[in-house]
Each structure stands twice: as structure tokens, then as C-alpha cells.
């Protein structure tokens, strides 16, 4: 297992979201779950906590998370990830799904 925490600069999230938290994905082989919660401080940073079963890929993780924080206004969110070996492209997809559920609801 490898565990790390880092905040990334990101434009602040809109004042209103559909719900206070959103979950995307499931902890299964080659998959991950992303929990995205609003209300984290400061408002211009995305706070990330990652726990992965595959050690040694911290650089890829940080790049994927930084990329998401750069492209989406996710400042003021706390992102917690439980990972079981998801590839970077899936990490990006789950982040976008969680963000979509948080801002627009599950529909």
C-alpha cells in the first residue's frame, strides 16, 4: 500500500452544488473509488488523499490529479481515493464522474 496527501491549485468550485458529496467508481481490480466533498479550505485548492494498493506510481498520480485540478474548478473540494490498480485514464474518468455528480446530481 502507498498513501499520500497533496493539495493542488484550482479555481474555486461554484457556490452551489447539487449535493455535499459524491462518490464514483468502486474498489475492484483495476478500478478505484473517488469521494469528492465540498467545504474544504482554502477555496482555491483541491485537497487530495490517495491510498493505493500498487506502490511506486506517485509521480503519475500527482500528474493526473494536477491535470484535473487545472482543468476543472474544483477548489474547496476534498478528494479521497481508494485505489486497486486503476490506470491513469480511469482515474481521470472517475474524477470527472464524481465532479459531475457533485455539481449536477446523479442524473
Amino acid at each position, binding site marked *: 500500500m502507498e498513501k499520500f496527501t497533496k493539495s493542488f491549485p484550482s479555481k474555486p468550485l461554484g457556490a452551489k452544488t447539487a449535493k455535499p458529496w459524491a462518490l464514483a467508481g*468502486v474498489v475492484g481490480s483495476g478500478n478505484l473509488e473517488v*469521494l469528492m466533498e465540498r467545504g474544504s479550505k482554502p477555496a482555491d485548492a483541491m485537497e487530495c488523499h490517495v491510498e493505493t494498493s500498487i506502490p511506486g506510481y506517485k509521480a503519475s498520480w500527482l500528474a493526473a490529479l494536477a491535470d484535473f485540478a487545472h482543468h476543472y474548478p474544483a477548489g474547496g473540494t476534498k478528494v479521497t481515493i*481508494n485505489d486497486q490498480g486503476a490506470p491513469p485514464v480511469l482515474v481521470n474518468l472517475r474524477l470527472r464522474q464524481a465532479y459531475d455528480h457533485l455539481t449536477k446530481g446523479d442524473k
Partner: protein
Amino acid sequence: MTGAILFHELTARQRIAALVDAGSFSELLPPPERITSPYLAQLGIPVSFDDGLVIGHARIGGKKIYLAAQVGQFVGGAVGEIHGAKLTGLFKAAARDKVPCVLIVESGGVRLHEGSSGEIAIAETMRAIFECRALKVPTIAVIATDIGAYGGIGILSTCCDFRVMTEHGRLGISGPIVIEKWMGKKAYDSANRALVWKTSGGKTKYLLGDADALVHDTADAVRDGISKFLGKSNAVSLAALKARQKDLAKRLKRFGAATDPDTVWKGMGVRNIEAASLASGPDFAALAKRGK
């Protein structure tokens, strides 16, 4: 969400959303509470925010229910300490509040990484289910996915008042691979999907009376199946247990030596095996005369 999409293809959370009245689900111990397995963490195995079980209360047709949905993709929906405690607590709450409890099953049984805690949790949940049944609070298990209900969860499902199944659902104690390991490939070939489903699948379980309803693989059909039992209960009495024991003895005598599951289907009233194999839900039930 409902209708076109098959129920067995949905995730646990999607299943709940598709079954209950829109917006009526309120989750207990939701993911932000982070009640996760301490054992998996010690073993270096990733944990899940809900420990593979989503629980809460909701309404179906305006009627309040407690419900739980297992997440089959997370360690096979297996029951660990937290997962089990949530399950026990939910059925206890159902008994306390006299509110029907529905379990959407998807589990191979106890999680081996936390075996003792899982076993104890299953036993405690069984006790809570019987508490519900003594109070005539309906308990319903929905078995509608390929993972099905096996091991402790197979037992627990049969402790509920009623079981709603689809043809995808499977119900048993030992899984096919376990049976093959003990009895040999000649006796039971776990790679033979037709054989596996014809011995433990929803259709056969319905014929034998182990499932109380066989429905189509859609959320609408599953909801209708659940609704039928929400106002009913199936009391546990000595007479009922004795009658059931007699039934099982009869079943063993009748089919115990059978080597082909078709023998059971024919014996239970299915005349056209091929047509019945292709039929789903109530269409299958109509083709088969319900077993006596």
C-alpha cells in the same frame, strides 16, 4: 434508469435509486463517515468507504422500508465486520420500528480476511431477521445477480420471509468451484454455466419453491416483486418447519439420485425444456406448473 437497463448490470447504488420512490433514499453511515474495515487496512488491501454495503431507508409506492444493497465488485460483496454490523443493525432497526426490510443480495458469503467477525455478524443478522419474523415485520431478499447468494449470505437469504429472484440470480451454500474441488469435475463441472444455473439459478429455485417470485431482469419488475410481499409475512412455527422438513425429505427422495438437472425441471412440471430455458420471469413461471 429503469426499464431498458438490466437490473443485474446496475451498481448497488444505482439499484437502490432505480427501485425506490424518486429522492426517497436516505443513506445511513454514508461514505463521508469513512467507516471502513480495520482488517483489510492491516493486510494492505484497499478499503471501501461503505465496506461494500449501502444501507438506509426509503419508500416504495409510498411505503417506508429499510433496505441494504451489497456491492459485489468490492471483494465479491463479502461480509466483514463493518459490512456485517451494518447488516445486523439494519434488521434490528427494522424490528424496532416495525418497518419491512429488503436486502439486495450480491455476495459470496463471509470475507475470509476477517472470517470470525464475518461469521459472527451473519449469525447476529440471522437472529435479527428472526426477531423481525416473530414480530411479523416482512423481510425480503432480492437475488438477481450472477454473484448471487452463497455461503453465509445464502443461508441468511433463506432465513428471510420471502425471496425474489431473476434468472440471473443464484442461490446456494457452497459455490460451484468449491463443489467441484470436493466432488471432482466429473460430479460437478463448475465451468459448465448451463449446469451451474440449472442447479442453483433463479428458475430452478423458483420451481423448487426456494424462491417465492421469479421476475424479469428490470428494476420495474424487481420493484413489483418486492411490493407484493411488503404487506405479508411468513410466520415461523413448529408446524411450518416440520412441513418444510417433510418437503425437503421428499425432494431428496425424488431427485437425490438425479444426474441431470432437466430431471428436476421435468419432475417439477416443465414439459418443454427448450422453451422454458429461453423464457424469462413470469413467462417461465407460466410454462412450468409450480411444483407441489
